């Protein structure tokens, strides 16, 4: 709580603060007042789920731009969010709409687009990775985002639940059902021969 007070006390100075203990609502309130450090903390907490949502719809080479667009949009419109606690659902909705917009405007999702990612990524994705990603994109929407949050971004089921507002049990079911479908569709790939839990 001390941290939250500190964030509110210096709303527009943008100075670096350790916001690890602040709640999302506290960070949103501070960001609302212009505190960029608080907003950066929100980014740290949510950029991976936003990226997974983007990656479910656009090529990997474009997904990073969608993430930045989503947060730029969120920053400029944050004052319209009346309930700070609604931020997770709000940012995820912006992400889905931005990703849908990007998918409409940009190149079709293809293997080439999934191999062209940030040059700093080391090692670069392999063809098998692009094929796996494409297969995940063909799964029902209900499972697609959750699987990408887990398999690409490395979030645990509990972290996914925390960031999306889903219950842990829903996340567990989505992960297992999505994984079962993924295994079936990847067929003979040796990466998918494991059993279904």
């Amino acid at each position, binding site marked *: 709580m001390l941290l939250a007070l500190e964030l509110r006390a210096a709303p527009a100075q943008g100075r670096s603060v350790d916001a690890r203990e602040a709640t999302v609502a506290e960070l949103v309130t501070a960001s609302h007042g212009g505190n960029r450090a608080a907003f950066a903390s929100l*980014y740290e907490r949510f950029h991976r789920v936003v990226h997974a949502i983007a*990656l479910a719809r656009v090529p990997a080479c474009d997904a990073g731009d969608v993430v930045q667009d989503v947060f730029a949009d969120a920053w*400029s419109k944050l004052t319209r969010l009346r309930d700070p606690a609604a931020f997770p*659902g709000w940012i*995820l909705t912006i992400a889905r709409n931005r990703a849908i917009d990007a998918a409409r405007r940009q190149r079709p999702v293809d293997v080439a687009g999934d191999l062209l990612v940030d040059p700093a990524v080391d090692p670069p994705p*392999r063809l098998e990775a692009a094929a796996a990603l494409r297969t995940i994109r063909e799964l029902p929407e209900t499972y697609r985002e959750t699987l990408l949050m887990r398999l690409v971004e490395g979030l645990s089921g509990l972290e996914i639940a925390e960031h999306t507002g889903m219950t842990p049990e829903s996340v567990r079911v989505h*992960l297992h059902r999505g994984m079962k479908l993924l295994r079936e569709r990847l067929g003979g790939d040796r*990466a998918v021969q494991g059993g279904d*839990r």
Partner: protein
Amino acid sequence: MRPSMSDYLFDKTGDDPAVAELEGLLGAYAHRAPLREPPPREPRRRRRWLAAAAAGGLVAAAAVIVVVWRSGGGEGCAAAGPGFAFSVEGGPARCGGGVASRGTLPVGEWLETSSSAVAGVRIADIGQLTVFPDSRVRLIGTGADGHRMQLARGKLSARVVAPPRLFVIDTPVATAVDLGCAYELTVDRDGRTLLRVTSGVVSLEGHGLVSYAPMGTEVVASPGRGPGTPVAGDATDALRAAVARFDGGAPSAVGAIVEVAGLRDTITLWNLLSRTSAAERATVVARLDELAGRPASVRVEDVVAGDAAAIARWREALEERWICLDCFERQR
């Protein structure tokens, strides 16, 4: 699913070589980039009266839910199994055959509001309903795969943040499938259903018909005919009358619709593409093309032939006109 002592996929305990291999493969796509410097904030713009009214309505609905939620007293409608928490304000309501002011609506039970009661209902962890006076709703089912309710009569508003198709509401003549965000449903004594979409998109389905209704549009579903053709909330009386004739079984009304349709009515014209014969469709295609243009990937002959993929591609191009960027405020 096989039971397991460990669940690597969910909580990373134990091991699962297949999942670990996929993680290793797909981890190359993980997002690591830092936040770019956000742009300066836009100054708040003056809202149009309509947007202000819509926002006021949302706030009022939220306030009703908050007030309702915090009010105490009364007997509960308990659910041994899964159910939706609810609370009532302003008058009595019946749940599961007894009077209740708060509790949990069990699967299979009805919640019925009196002429002065308003109920707030939590839709699992994905959203909330406001059930207005003289309404009757039932929870049909709830689970990880989705949530289903029924509105037999009256009015409700729903606000949902969840993947598409996770929440549906049946009415006597159609099914409203949530594709994201907020809407109102009204059912009269004959079962006639009015859908008003205030944010996002809703699909109203039934009788083999699907009405695609983005924010700002309205659809009427009638007994024996299912969902009608969506119209813009600010459509002219002439357009509405022509659509009513068409939905009532007069294909010749297509000519009148095409004649009076303006730019705001592209949603009506697009929905007509899957409800008309090839000859009628040709006139709709021509008007829609004239009003809104057509992507190069959408060929006139394919649309006239009723090619569902071509019609869907055209919708994707048109959606920029229909759907707001962020679902919480109408695009200007």
